[in-house]
């Protein structure tokens, strides 16, 4: 029982990390169809923002709280800039976005290496987040993981509310469903694109803040997660928030259960095989967007 509870919690916490990282991608890849390989570097930007803030603000707890909005703004601004400089010229050529953003991602990695040095750095977690909640009988929930889980759920709720309830959300959905019709209806699609990119990239920055609680911060930290994030979005169904949420947690739990009964590498192989099999069965992913467009 202890094992099951601890493992489920580990799985959910892996899922929370995946979700937090995939959330921004659901917007930029899922909604807009841009294969943004630089998404991982926005995560890195968020993590380094935390690092910089911790250097200048004493008190790990305060700096972490400040880092959340600041990282959102920094990564979001980088995303909007990338959209304005390059991606908006490529909406008709989605596959080219892959190459272009890959190049950008390599440049950002090198930039980070030049600015922060090649060795990875760490931030100190606030005392509150280094401990755990013990339910007795060996059942423990790490505070840092609970924090990340909370952060992920909060982000999902915020994103859902924005998409469903705000005028901006309606405009985003309109552009996604039919760009031309949205344009002739008087929606400034270019502006909507940039704002969508800002939010999606900003969420990557928030994920970066969360990752500083888990491991080291380095120029290539984003690459460790980017493929997993794409997996979550594709398996969940492109553009489907609900799909991403379910997939992230399902993959997290599956991964941790398999890791427990086999080894880390075997678990990865099985998970990937399962994903390939799933996509054979449902190429469109868990959920699909129903539109009247022919595409």
């Amino acid at each position, binding site marked *: 029982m*202890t*094992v099951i509870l*601890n*493992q489920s919690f*580990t799985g959910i*916490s*892996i899922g929370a*990390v*995946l979700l937090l990282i995939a959330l921004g991608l659901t917007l930029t890849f899922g909604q807009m169809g841009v294969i943004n*390989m630089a998404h991982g570097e926005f995560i890195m930007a968020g993590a380094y923002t935390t690092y910089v803030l911790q250097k200048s603000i004493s008190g790990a707890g305060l700096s972490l709280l400040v880092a959340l909005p600041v990282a959102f703004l920094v990564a979001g601004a980088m995303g909007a800039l990338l959209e304005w400089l390059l991606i908006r010229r490529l909406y008709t050529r989605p596959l080219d976005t892959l190459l272009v953003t*890959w190049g950008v*991602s*390599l440049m950002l990695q090198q930039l980070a*290496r030049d600015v922060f040095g*090649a*060795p*990875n*750095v*760490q931030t*100190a*977690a606030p005392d509150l987040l*280094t*401990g*755990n909640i*013990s339910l007795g009988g*060996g059942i*423990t929930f*790490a*505070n*840092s*993981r609970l924090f990340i889980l909370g952060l992920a759920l909060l982000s999902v709720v915020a994103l859902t509310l924005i998409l469903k309830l705000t005028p901006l959300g309606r405009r985003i959905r309109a552009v996604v469903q039919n760009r031309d019709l949205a344009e002739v209806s008087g929606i400034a699609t270019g502006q909507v694109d940039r704002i969508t990119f800002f939010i999606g990239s900003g969420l990557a920055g928030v994920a970066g803040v969360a*990752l500083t*609680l*888990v*491991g*080291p911060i*380095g*120029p*290539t930290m984003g*690459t*460790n*997660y*980017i*493929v*997993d994030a794409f*997996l979550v979005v594709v398996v969940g169904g492109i553009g489907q928030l609900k799909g991403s949420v379910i997939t992230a947690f399902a*993959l997290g739990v599956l*991964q*941790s259960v398999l*890791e*427990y009964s086999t*080894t*880390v*590498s075997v678990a*990865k*192989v099985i*998970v*990937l095989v399962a994903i390939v099999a799933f996509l054979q069965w449902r190429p469109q992913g868990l959920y699909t967007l129903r539109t009247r467009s022919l595409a």
Partner: protein
Amino acid sequence: MSGLSISRRGLLAGISAAGASAALSACGAKTGDSTSADSGAKADTSGDTVKVGLLNSLSGTMAISEVTVHNALLLAVKEINAAGGVLGKKLKPISQDGASDWPTFAEKAEALITDDKVVATFGCWTSASRKAVKPVFERYKSLLFYPVQYEGLEQSPYIFYIGATTNQQIVPALDYLKKQGLTKLYLVGSDYVFPRTANKIIKAYAKANGMEVVGEDYAPLGSTEFGTITNKVKDSGADAVFNTLNGDSNVAFFKEYKSAGLTAKSLPVLSVSIAEEEVKSIGTQYLEDQLTAWNYYQTTPGAANTEFVAAYQAAYGKDKPTSDPMEAAYISVYLWKEMVEKAGSFDVAKVKAASDGIELDAPEGKVTVDGATQHVYKTARIGRVGADGLITEVWNSGKPVKPDPYLKGYSWASGLS
């Protein structure tokens, strides 16, 4: 879920690996054609200076450790130059970045030997990088001085192993755990050659010494997800963890370990790849009271060490700690200098012939080169991490231990290869 997925870096590494191996096989064909005894690339010793190669990961997941080794090497070169150089020639260090990527190491090693015509190369950290460059140094008959403890079971005529082999680190560490009554071990390591081989040795030792290995897990190099492994450790009934994780996976592992409520008191971890520099960057609060096994600590007593620490901190900053691999790297340059001076020549064959019995009053105490194995006699030391981030010795072997890379002196190791 990071390592296995096809990352962009992975793809790039694959491409460069293909490129490198193509380049290597081309060179192999070239040197293979000339059957003369001297098929190696000629080191350039004609001028007032000779070049020495420094080959370390200055970027990537291993940079956390290897940059310090690079600094120590530069310090030794600088000191030797200030004292007049070697055989009247100044040393010119040529730094190459292996970038934590084994094919890159092989490429850069070849560049050092063939383009820069270095007289010797110092560096490498992971066994994977060493295995990648080994054929390069052997093909060109050039010398590599390797400064890090490793899994043993290897001997190359063109590598001098200045770090500990297993009987100078892992075996004493196991002896120590056994003496403390910690006999149920959980093995956690990075998924590559050193941890896998080390754990093979540990399992053989455990079997012969009444210890039990209750679990064994590997995480991909650079992995940051340790929730499950920590849970497994917790449920295993182990009374100690033997940690062979490399690089900054240790950061994630110890963060998770503490979050899970595990402490040095409840379940001690003995690490063989974490030294002072890593302790500092992982965070002392995660590592306090945990055990390490090395041959040298910053706190090791002796005049030679006081001088070394002072010189290092004067060069790189008062708060910079020294560590075992740094010390081994530092003395490797001096050992090479002694060999060259005894040989009276930079010629690789002559240097090798002169190596046996070369002694040095090193920061770690007396070290002696064993010409037969090209390893070094070293004192084994177990240490405990203090609140200040420094490691203090809790046990030592009393005298330098003869290197035994193939563990020929241990009957339980007869099945290993």
